[in-house]
């Protein structure tokens, strides 16, 4: 699996070579301004501000029920929200899922939402639906690339998605999103419920994707792993962003260490990874 050659660069789109090597701030792929979401009268997300630079991994950590999934769903247009989502230089006041997908944003949702009664290969193929529809018929090539990243999926390509193991399902969900060749990939708890070894594998692939130029917004409860792989991090608590900073800096912050990295907490099992 280490033969991940650099010349295979089919998945990542729009890598601005100059921007990548420059030490300054890279071009902004996603900017979220004052995003608010309410379920009925209960506000689940209030005035969230966030930025993802091109080729960066940005992570959002926070406890259960903080509003992380809510935030990703609102950015994607799955939920109604107030505020502004500026993606790839163009503002969306009312994001609509199909339009966001067409513009190059893809979400791997917390619930995975696989097509259970379809084969692994058909699931992957449908990941390229939007591209196919707009006339870009390069799915065979992209699929090879995805199989290269996840050899397990190729071994099981004829198997029904509903019969995969948890780890394989997660790989399929990520692989399916990659079939769309996203400019921005949003991952909602990719390590959820996975054994340490698989978690490490998933994070290795997240790092690999960044190397290929995919910008990533990563929501995680596994704070240690997330802060290790990310460039920049936000802490979301009860619907509000309470802290932000470069990932290394946050990892050393005593408040973060106590709440999210401290031993004896609920994350201990995962830290073993």
């Amino acid at each position, binding site marked *: 699996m280490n033969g991940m050659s650099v010349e295979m660069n089919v998945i990542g789109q729009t890598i601005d070579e100059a921007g990548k090597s420059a030490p300054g701030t890279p071009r902004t792929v996603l900017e979220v301004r004052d995003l608010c979401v309410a379920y009925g009268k209960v506000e689940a997300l209030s005035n969230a501000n966030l930025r993802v630079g091109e080729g960066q991994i940005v992570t959002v950590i926070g406890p259960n029920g903080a509003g992380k999934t809510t935030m990703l769903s609102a950015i994607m247009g799955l939920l109604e929200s107030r505020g502004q989502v500026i993606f790839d230089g163009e503002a969306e006041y009312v994001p609509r*899922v199909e339009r966001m*997908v067409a513009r190059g944003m893809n979400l791997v949702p917390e619930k995975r939402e696989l097509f259970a009664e379809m084969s692994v290969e058909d699931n992957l193929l*449908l990941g390229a639906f939007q591209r196919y529809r707009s006339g870009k018929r390069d799915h065979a090539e992209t699929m090879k690339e995805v199989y290269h990243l996840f050899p397990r999926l190729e071994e099981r390509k004829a198997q029904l998605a509903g019969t995969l193991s948890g780890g394989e399902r997660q790989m399929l969900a990520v692989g399916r999103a990659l079939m769309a060749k996203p400019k921005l990939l949003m991952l909602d708890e990719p390590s959820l419920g996975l054994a340490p070894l698989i978690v490490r594998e998933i994070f290795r692939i997240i790092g690999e994707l960044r190397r290929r130029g995919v910008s990533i917004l990563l929501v995680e409860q596994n704070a240690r792993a997330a802060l290790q792989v990310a460039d920049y991090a936000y802490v979301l608590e009860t619907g509000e962003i309470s802290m932000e900073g470069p990932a290394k800096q946050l990892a050393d912050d005593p408040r973060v260490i106590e709440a999210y990295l401290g031993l004896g907490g609920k994350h201990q099992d995962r830290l073993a990874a």
Partner: protein
Amino acid sequence: MDIQIALLLAQDGITNGAIYALLALALVLVFAVTRVIFIPQGEFVAYGALTLVMIQAGTVPATLWLLLGAGVLAAAVDARGALASGQKGRLAGVLAWNVGYPAVLAALLYGLPLATLALPLQVLLALLVVVPMGPLMYRLIYQPIAAAPVLILLIVSVAVHVGMVGLGLLFFGAEGSRTPAFSEARFELGPMLVNGQTIWVIAASIVLIVALYLFFGRTIYGKALRATAMNRNGARLMGISPALAGRLTFLLAALIGALSGVLIAPITTIYYDTGFLIGLKGFVAAIVGGLASYPIAAAGAVLVGLLEAFSSFWASAYKEVIVFTLIIPVLLWRSFTSHHVEEEE
């Protein structure tokens, strides 16, 4: 009843069963993708058959006006949407499809010597008029309420059905009609005399079912429809919009309905309101399949067709009663052995 008659009835039953099977497939498909219980499915059968009758009589089919009207409405709705979201570029396409297409079709229908055209061309024209009404119906009626509960969608379907039957009376009059058979050929098959139209119906049904099977199994659009039926949210995240899936599904349902009408028009006298009972039998078959299983629905359709044929021999006046009564135990058995189709949310 001797074997000769039994075979004849079986032949009738299987012919009708093939049509019910097609309608059942359409109903299952529409429900799986859009959660709409598609009562007006039968109206497409009547519209298809009677539009062909009008074309064969050399008159411009009245259904053309419905197509034009719906097209103009859809163009207005879509144009408003395109302008509101600042996508002026989409206007040309919106107008071409919704208004341009019916206009070109109208020109064809007025220009061609309809009565003397070859039968396949007449059939093609009838389909070109009736089938686009499916996606237009979805666009105008179901798409705005796509998120409504199943019950609301059902009530709307009943309203659409009543409306279409009324328009059918207006378009076609109260007289029933038949079209000439596709083929007058008759074959001896053992002790049985098989007529040509029966072969046509069964062959066309099989071809259509195989074509649908390939569409759903092999093409990305077919897979996208299945994906929407399996997991609407997952499909949306792939960029498969429910509106696109809905329109595509209604296109298929209208095609299946209209083609069924064209196929049975030579065997059965079709009135403006005949579609409902035909559709209802397809619906019973679909229910036997739990509105979810295509093979069981198809088998149920053949069962309904056979029941109908044999009961019409013994007690012709009561044939509908017998069909719908005998189906109750099957439904009870199905409801105890299969899990229900759950309503979402």
